[in-house]
């Protein structure tokens, strides 16, 4: 992964807690009856995630390792980490939303302790996290941690 620190960062007011319905929607994914249902909910979740303005869909905020394009921004406020992310693919955006639900507004320690594999296992989505997948989810999960630890700023 070759994420570099983006030059222009969206207004800090845009980095907020996620809407309550986004957080609730993760439960639907876990309880989905079949894969169709699961992916329908993932896409809905992606739809509910705030979108990035086009001028922030920049190469320097792009997380490499995705076949689709995915962008990630970070802002730290009072020791808590906030992220803004988007993708041009609907399922990838939904998967990003799932990641953000677990990490938004958390402290560095909480983010470091977060077991992303276990989380995706519980949701029945462990296959999507494999670094060999081109959805970039593993790279995104890694970038979230790197930001929280100040490795990327």
């Amino acid at each position, binding site marked *: 992964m070759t994420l570099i620190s983006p030059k222009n960062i969206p207004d800090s007011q845009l980095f907020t807690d996620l809407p309550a319905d986004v957080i609730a929607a993760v439960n639907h994914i876990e309880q989905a009856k079949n894969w*169709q249902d699961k*992916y329908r909910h993932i896409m809905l979740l992606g739809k509910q995630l705030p979108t990035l303005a086009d001028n922030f869909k920049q190469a320097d905020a792009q997380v490499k390792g995705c*076949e*689709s394009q995915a962008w990630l921004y970070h802002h730290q406020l009072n020791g808590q980490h906030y992220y803004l992310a988007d993708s*041009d*693919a*609907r399922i*990838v955006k939904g998967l990003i939303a799932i990641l953000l639900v677990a990490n938004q507004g958390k402290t560095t320690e909480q983010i470091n302790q977060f077991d992303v594999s276990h989380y995706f296992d519980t949701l029945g989505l462990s296959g999507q996290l494999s670094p060999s997948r081109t*959805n970039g989810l593993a790279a995104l999960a890694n970038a979230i941690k790197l930001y929280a630890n100040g490795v990327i700023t």
Partner: protein
Amino acid sequence: MKSTSPIPSQAPFDHQAIRDQFPALKQTIGDHHLCYLDTAATSQKPQAVIDAMNEYYQLNNANVHRAAHQLSTRATQQYEAVRQQVAHFINASKSQEIIFTHGTTESINMVAYGLTPQFTPNDIILIDTAAHHANIVPWQELAKRSGATIKPIPLTADAQLDIKAYEQLLQAKPKLVALCHVSNALGTVNPINDLIAMAKNAGALTLVDGAQAVAHLDVDVQNTDCDFYVFSGHKMYGPTGVGILYGRFEQLNTLTPMLTGGEMIKTVSFDRTEYGELPNRLEAGTPAIAEVIGLGAAISFLHGLPREHIHAHEQKLMQYLQAQLLNLGDVSLYGIANDKRQINVGSVAFNLAGEHHQDVGILLDQQAIAVRCGHHCAMPLMNELNLAGCCRASIGIYTNKHDIDQFIQALNTVKELLL
């Protein structure tokens, strides 16, 4: 294996019997039977190839070309017999024209590197816009080293090589023309013999990337008359890690070796080293012996099949696949010639309405459909088509109508989910 035809002579083409020889295709993934439509990325391997490699390791494992003992003699004989087989397979005039490499990419790199001293800043290299990155980047590196200029050969609106534009580009007397025989992303087929004849008339050297052609078309390098023809073993039912560089002897003999070391020398002293003769001169180090033997088994496997029946079977499947995709609706196909003069070979490129190819790929994967979704290592081609990427379904000798039906049904489910 159960035999379903008691009188084989009445069933000259038993496709199921061919398919049954590919053990990987017998598996299920989740609740679904595996539907492998990613042969253009790599083909599955018949039992005969797996057995040949096993046998080499179990019985004949020894280094080649230093035959001081029985095992080494056997290994060398087998290894060199495959060189003859490959020469025969593509109708090369002599086996010294066949160089074993690690794959198409290495083959092209060896040519681009090896020609460096022959290039000057005044030289032009023409490259097919539909080329795979492996047939672009090594030439860019050659251009960097030599100062030569690269010019892409444009495509027509229906994504076929633009012959008129090619004719014009040839007037500038390019030093080399790099073409693909069959496009890896679209399955379009170049009229390779005509294109090479035109390049020859202009005095150009020619290289043909045959990676997507050898498994599907009859290749005859003497008839095509190209200087270099390259391909990989793993796309023609052989193992990964082995490929071929065919070169016309006089041209091949001018290449500066990209790799130097053992095996490729005649004499070595600290004052000077004399290189050996072809083909050893271009095969430094211990080669991928088991893989070469596996490739030999793949060629024997193909030779044992009725070629005409296979061609007809694959053409029928391609037409069925294209027709079923269009029947489904909301599907865009790419690289279909306007006048339908040519049936695409191996691959069909498509997108579902305005949906992202990766979303389509993820949802097909849920249903055990193996297709490739992305830029297919052909970014200049994707730019030309104005696409971020696309999905590609590709067939092999083992693909049957049921695979296509399973795929179309799965794509219909994807469509219901996304649209």
